[in-house]
């Protein structure tokens, strides 16, 4: 049996009207950025704006050749992935400990949360000095930690993402029944085996969501990358800024570079969207 088609009610019209407004609001800047990236130099600044033009790849070629964008992408991928791996490795173990053993009786957990309460700009100068000094030591040299070295960014991003990751993961671990772990322990498994065979498989959606958020944050981060790197360790977001030249802003290459930097994350999130929503509601839907 087919449901009768719904009539258009005033409320329905209003609802879809609002959805349309929000949709335009959010997608127009991105669309504008992508359109601009394909415009020839003459059309970029034309007023009123033109929507019909001869598309060109000049801006992309310019961005990649002039600004060494291949290196920026490599740096960004390396820093983002490395810091995410570190955050997940440390964060899952810490969060499990907080969730299961109530380590520190909430005080340590709260302390960790407080490190998120000050703005990044407050710590960026101390970081600059710390990394400059570490960079001069042999340890800093060996571990690639120092100014304009990827290690400095990896450590900074790990520091900044870890509290958020722990905070998110604790609730995922709390949702896993203690009896499941008890049962596995009685079934002949060691604590570490229980963690690997029972707890982590169940926490996978939560860990995946956390990892995605960390990755996105690290990918998009600007301030630390701007202050702590110059050339060799420069990342995409800062790379975009390199077209703000003394002669003026090169909007075409800026749009091309911005498109390159945004695209991987958009594709990534679209692919994982369903998984992420499931992960975020993980605790709520379990019976």
């Amino acid at each position, binding site marked *: 049996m087919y449901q009768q088609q719904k009539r258009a009610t005033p409320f329905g019209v209003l609802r879809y009207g609002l959805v349309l407004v929000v949709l335009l609001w959010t997608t127009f800047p991105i669309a504008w950025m992508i359109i601009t990236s394909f415009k020839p130099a003459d059309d970029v600044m034309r007023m009123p704006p033109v929507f019909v033009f001869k598309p060109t790849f000049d801006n992309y070629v310019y961005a990649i050749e002039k600004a060494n964008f291949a290196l920026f992408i490599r740096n960004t991928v390396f820093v983002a992935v490395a810091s995410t791996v570190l955050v997940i490795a440390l964060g899952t173990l810490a969060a499990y400990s907080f969730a299961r053993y109530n380590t520190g009786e909430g005080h340590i957990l709260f302390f960790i949360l407080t490190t998120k309460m000050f703005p990044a700009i407050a710590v960026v100068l101390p970081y600059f000095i710390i990394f400059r000094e570490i960079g001069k030591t042999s340890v800093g040299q060996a571990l690639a930690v120092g100014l304009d070295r990827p290690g400095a960014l990896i450590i900074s991003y790990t520091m900044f993402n870890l509290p958020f990751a722990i905070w998110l993961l604790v609730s995922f671990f709390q949702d896993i*029944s203690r*009896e499941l772990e008890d049962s596995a322990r*009685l079934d002949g498994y060691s604590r570490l085996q229980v963690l690997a065979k029972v707890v982590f498989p169940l926490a996978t959606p939560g860990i995946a969501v956390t990892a995605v958020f960390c990755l996105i944050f690290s990918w998009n981060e600007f301030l630390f990358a701007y202050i702590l790197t110059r050339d060799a360790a420069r990342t995409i977001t800062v790379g975009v800024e390199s077209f703000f030249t003394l002669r003026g802003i090169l909007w075409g290459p800026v749009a091309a570079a911005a498109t390159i930097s945004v695209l991987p994350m958009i594709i990534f999130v679209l692919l994982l969207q369903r998984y992420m929503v499931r992960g975020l509601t993980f605790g709520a839907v379990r019976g």
Partner: protein
Amino acid sequence: MASITLENLVKHYGAVEAVRGISFQVEDGEFLAILGPSGCGKSSTMRMIAGLEETSDGGIYYDDKLVNAVRARDRNVAMAFETYALYPTLTVYENIAFPLRSAKWKSERVDEKVREISHTMELTDLLDRMPGELSGGQAQRIGLARALVREPAVFLLDEPISHLDTRQRHRMRQFIRHLHLELQYTMIYVTHDQEEAMAMADRIVVMHEGLIRQIGTPDEVFNDPADDFVAGFVGEPPINFLEGSLVQSNGTLSLRFRGHLIPLPESLQSRGDSLPSEIKMGIRPFYVNLRLDPDEPYDLAGEVFVVETLQDFCIVSIDVDDERLQVVAPLSARVQRRERVHLKLDPEFMRFFDLQTGKAVGLG
């Protein structure tokens, strides 16, 4: 299989004393129930027996071996949990095989064993399902199958059927009892439901506030409760308590309850000296008889508060002064709300407790 002995077992959680020094023994092949209200320490006791919780003091012995320091996974204990604790990411088959995988069994032997236990537990049709697709009764049968698949020394059950509906609960009760008779495992069953304990166990340990109140067969716990707590906790509808003082009148020793004099049973008449003067009498609702004929002798008089009609009998609540008593009466009694009735207590089933200490008095 093994016998289990607890010696002065104590468990603290910080300043909270959950278990305050308890001792008992479970014989090899016995079905023992630990019964008590929530927070009485029964689950802590079981978790210590399993090795999931460390002991604060005292000893746990499997046969003659002290196991306090033995890890849970090395004790060869199986446990069925209140929430079933099935691994949601594994199929029913893999859930049952899970304990065998840890012991690194060959897959042919695992398969053989899983099929064998599934047959016993009537699960053969469910092996390919995921835990999310099962009813509560099925889930707990799988929980039991997983516990039993590796032939444990001791089988612990922690409120395994309290989440099931009444009908399934009854079926599982029979099934667990059947399993015990069939397999002869040493079983310890924790529950807050006195009916479960009474129906299944060989012996019952009644716990309250971290202490053991009584250890005995279901019959002993029901008919000869060691104190007023046990008397009040066991039995449905609950026992009636009448508090009063002992008096001698016309050569008969009686309990004075409000304005009524209730003669003590024959066996206690000569033992007035050994009884405390302030006393609490307990009598189960089955042994309080309604007297509709006003000329017959009676012990108490009261007014019917409400009548609950069950299938083949009814429970009548009667207000005697300000005390509300429960009486089990045949359907033929046909009493009405607010009707005045007379009650006769069966002296053979009167039980007496010291009003101060709560301990049973006048036994044997």
